């Protein structure tokens, strides 16, 4: 190296740094580390979630650093931009030299340098020039002859495409990054920075969202979501943007005709599909298509994807049983899922907030016993089995709702519509919880032969009605006397006990009886007394039912096993309803499912560039790693022939190739 005559300027130093490989490697490292942050910290969550998780101080600090959307933060994009600049400059810096080298044959290489090459050998005798040329051509070398004063040289090369690989791979990176930048939300970020675009944070109807939160349909690149109910339309999508959202206008109207969802027999989803019609706003042209996962529809450069689905607000029909007035007949109540309606019961005001209607509830109903208890043979058997038997059951439609009282206290309920069958008996299952974090607690209400709650409600009304206790106690006492379970003297006392127990039970179910035992009965006697209470309750419940039926003008219940079981279940359910924190029991009677489909709409003009860049990248890598650039020289002078060979990669193949060429040359020399 000769020292340069003038000091390099600052601009040149910067150029040299930016185009250097250590700078590029440094950038790659920083990008890799920065990328990790975005995978550890969940990105693009609603801001309140972050504030809750980190506390106000760190929330603000992280927000300032852009950590909630690392990959679109200014600093990350700056690093990416530097990578593009660095790679471009690398091409500018090394490109011309590489091009020169690709063209050159180095036929002027000095004898010393040929001699110093790692693969170089001298053969006595002169090779025939024509024959050597033919041989090298047959070996795939392109040749350039050179004349020297003391003889001649034949320079050959192959695999120049290796250098081409460098260009392909590095230009590819620049192309991919430019494509990615086109699809990135850089213009949006700039708009937000300069205040021309302001994300909306309020929950407003779409039409009322101000213009500075709306993006025109001419917007080059976007990615937004919209949820459309069946038979509804949308002509905008919503873009998540930091604290709020933006509205992107579409050049067309999307109408959801129908949403389809299919399940496998094990309850896993099989198909999500939306039948949509896209109507162009300008021309009125309609395009009908079915959008499925993995099968988007592309209209006007906007791709429409199936992203999610849910309830779209289904009309519901309930039978409402007033629990405070057990004798009253149920009334019809109508509602719509995902909607809130006011409710006035027994003089109190409530808000009834319906949640999602779920038409299928496929659950695993307990499987095989778990690991420890299984024998080796069973384990081997299972290990061989690619299809495990599972006890799956579809529990049918369910609706969740919250009942919020005037004080704002809410209890959440989950009611199933279909009867739940167990050992021949049918039940209606209802879950309840007061905290979203808790699991639901379920109660089962027994259904009669008509699959109706009416019989149970009649039983309950009689159990809770003190005016009937005399009659009930009389009948139970008479039966006990007839069965010789009690003596005649005992009958009066027994009937009083029945009435007392019924009254206690009506106050608070089994819990009230237990409470009494705990307060009044010595510990050692409690179990015995409790058993007596239960026996008396069980003995009297058929009479409760009979009296209830008689009051309703119905025949007495049959005295069979199934009825008895129903009555016992009725006792349990009546007791459990004491903890049911709603004045009404809403029995889901019917619904009309209206589904909603979540669609994602994107326009990404950079995609073509990214794909083109990707193709170039693969071609570049193949050329760089699998094309070996080899140069060869045959130099004849003074009755001697030198063979020299060099390559940009040294490996065992090269040694073998050189040996082969050397042998061939010797034969050629001899042949001459």
């Amino acid at each position, binding site marked *: 190296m000769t020292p340069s005559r003038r000091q390099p300027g600052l601009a040149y130093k910067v150029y040299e740094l930016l185009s250097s*490989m250590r700078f*590029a*490697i440094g950038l*790659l*490292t920083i*990008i*890799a580390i920065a*990328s*990790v942050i*975005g*995978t550890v910290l*969940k*990105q693009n969550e609603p801001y309140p979630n972050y504030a809750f998780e980190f506390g106000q101080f760190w929330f603000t600090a992280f927000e300032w650093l852009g950590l909630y959307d*690392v*990959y679109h933060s200014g600093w990350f994009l700056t690093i990416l931009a530097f990578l593009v600049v660095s790679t471009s400059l690398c091409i500018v810096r090394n490109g011309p030299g590489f091009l020169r080298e690709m063209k050159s044959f180095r036929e002027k290489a000095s004898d010393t340098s040929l001699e110093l090459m790692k693969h170089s050998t001298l053969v006595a005798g002169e090779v025939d020039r*024509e*024959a050597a040329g*033919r041989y090298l051509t*047959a*070996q795939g070398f392109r040749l350039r002859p050179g004349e020297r004063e003391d003889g001649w040289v034949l320079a050959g090369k192959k695999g120049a495409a290796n250098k081409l690989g460098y260009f392909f791979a590095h230009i590819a990176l620049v192309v991919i990054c430019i494509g*990615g930048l086109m699809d990135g939300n850089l213009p949006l970020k700039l708009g937000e920075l300069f205040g021309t675009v302001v994300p909306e944070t309020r929950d407003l109807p779409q039409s009322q969202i101000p213009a500075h939160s709306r993006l025109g349909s001419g917007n080059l690149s976007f*990615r937004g979501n919209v949820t459309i109910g069946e038979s509804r339309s949308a002509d905008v999508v919503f873009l998540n943007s930091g604290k709020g959202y933006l509205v992107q206008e579409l050049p067309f109207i999307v109408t959801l005709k129908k949403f389809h969802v299919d399940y*496998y*027999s*094990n309850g*896993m*989803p*099989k198909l*999500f599909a939306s039948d949509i019609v896209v109507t162009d706003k300008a021309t009125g042209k309609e395009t009908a298509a079915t959008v*499925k*996962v*993995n099968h*988007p529809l592309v209209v006007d450069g906007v*791709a429409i*994807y*199936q*992203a999610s689905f849910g309830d779209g607000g289904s009309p519901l029909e309930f039978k409402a049983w007033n629990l405070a007035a057990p004798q009253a007949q149920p009334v019809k109540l109508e509602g719509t899922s995902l909607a809130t309606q006011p409710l006035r019961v027994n003089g109190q005001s409530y808000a009834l907030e319906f949640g999602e209607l779920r038409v299928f509830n496929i659950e695993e109903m307990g499987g095989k016993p778990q690991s420890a208890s299984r024998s080796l043979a069973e*384990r081997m058997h299972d*290990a*061989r*089995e*690619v*299809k*495990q038997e599972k006890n799956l059951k579809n529990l049918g439609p369910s609706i969740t709702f919250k009942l919020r009282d005037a004080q704002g206290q809410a209890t959440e309920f989950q009611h199933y519509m279909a009867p739940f069958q167990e050992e021949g008996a049918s039940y209606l299952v209802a879950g309840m919880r007061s905290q979203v974090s808790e699991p639901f607690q379920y109660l089962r209400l027994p259904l009669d032969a008509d699959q109706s709650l009416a019989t149970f409600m009649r039983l309950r009304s009689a159990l809770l009605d003190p005016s009937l206790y005399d009659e009930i106690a009389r009948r139970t006492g008479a039966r006990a006397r007839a069965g010789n379970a009690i003596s005649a003297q005992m009958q009066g006392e027994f009937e009083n006990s029945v009435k007392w127990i019924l009254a206690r039970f009506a106050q608070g179910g089994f819990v009230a009886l237990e409470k009494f035992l705990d307060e009044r009965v010595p510990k050692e006697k409690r179990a015995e007394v409790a058993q007596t209470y239960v026996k008396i309750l069980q003995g009297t419940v058929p009479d409760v039912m009979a009296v209830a039926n008689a009051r309703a003008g119905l025949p007495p219940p049959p005295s069979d096993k199934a009825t008895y079981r129903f009555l016992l279940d009725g006792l349990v359910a009546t007791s459990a309803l004491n903890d049911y924190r709603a004045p009404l029991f809403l029995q889901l009677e019917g619904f009309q499912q209206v589904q909603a489909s979540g669609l994602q709409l*994107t326009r*990404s003009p950079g*995609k073509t560039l990214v*794909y083109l860049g990707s193709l170039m*990248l*693969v071609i570049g*890598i*193949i050329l760089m*790693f699998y094309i070996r650039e080899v140069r060869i020289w045959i130099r004849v002078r003074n009755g001697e022939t030198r063979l020299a060979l060099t390559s940009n990669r040294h*490996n065992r193949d090269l040694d073998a190739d050189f040996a*082969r060429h050397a*042998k*061939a040359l010797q*034969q*050629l020399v001899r*042949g001459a």
Partner: protein
Amino acid sequence: MELASTTFDPKPPFYRQLRLTDWLYALLVLSAAVFTFYRYGSYLDGYEAGILAGSAIGLIGLGWFWKAWRWYFPLSGLVALAAIGLYQGDLGRAQTAFGLKYLLSSQSSIMWMCTLFFLATLLYWMALLQRSELLGRIAAGLTWSASVAGLAGMFTRWYESYLIGPDIGHIPVSNLYEVFVLFCLITALMYLYYEARFAARQMGAFVLLVVSAAVGFILWYTFDRQAHEIQPLIPALQSWWMKIHVPANFIGYGAFAIAAMLGVAELMVMRGWLASRLPPAEVLDEVMYKAIAVGFLFFTIATILGAMWAADAWGGYWSWDPKETWALIVWLNYAAWLHIRLVKGWRGAPLAWWAVGGLFVTSFAFLGVNMFLSGLHSYGTL
């Protein structure tokens, strides 16, 4: 002179080097592909037919390039066909037919693969420590057998999935269990190629360690988690992209794993441990470079295919999903490794250490993302 130019033309064009067996193999693969198309063509969409044709060409090319493949692949197919024959269309026979129960049902095959890989590891180490050529040959034979059992098991599993239900059937590369088997297979096969190419059987002791670790995971996953059960495909996975994206990715992972284990071997040689028994550091270095080069190529292709699939399934070719981001990190890592080696000319210990570290980055992208991070690409959980 005419005579001379013909005698020393020791490297004839590629097709002139092909023997009868090469052509027979090609004919076999081609007829299998034609038969498949003739029989099942109506179920394939255009892309799948394209993949079938591409696979046939690729398999022929692979057989011509790597001669051992010419018997390995048909043999595995034959074993799978035997299993299919034994099934007689009834999945229940996996527990009753002797041949299926103990040998050929996919799970039995895979369990045999696991056992044989363990044995091969053991024997590779014995061969290394005792400098025994014979033990080394047996170890290589066991590795080949394990690979046959594994591939046949995968084929049989593919068939079994259709026995469970025509709508459930799919190529077995859809969950963590299946891709772990694929990982073992690809790593072992790539290693067998390098072993023959570089006549360095001692590398097996190291490479098979990582395969054994994966086998250990498979066993735990099977016996403790019952993860071997065939699950139907969720809508996001119902795509022909899966057939090419997943295998390409695992060629990458397998190659990086081999490179890391060779890095360990190279570092040991440099410290003088087992140096007299292992191949010279230069050879290990060269194989390590070759593995990373091929892994990088396939990992690049797989990531691009993944991006294209994401564009169809998730609404964008790049969403900075944790899996995508970690794929980028892995890619950047090996891109930097290759730059340092090729441009700066580094060799030896630093790069060996780096290749070993690379395995941790790769493992995190493969497993860690599934375990610790949530995202769109949640197809295998522990």
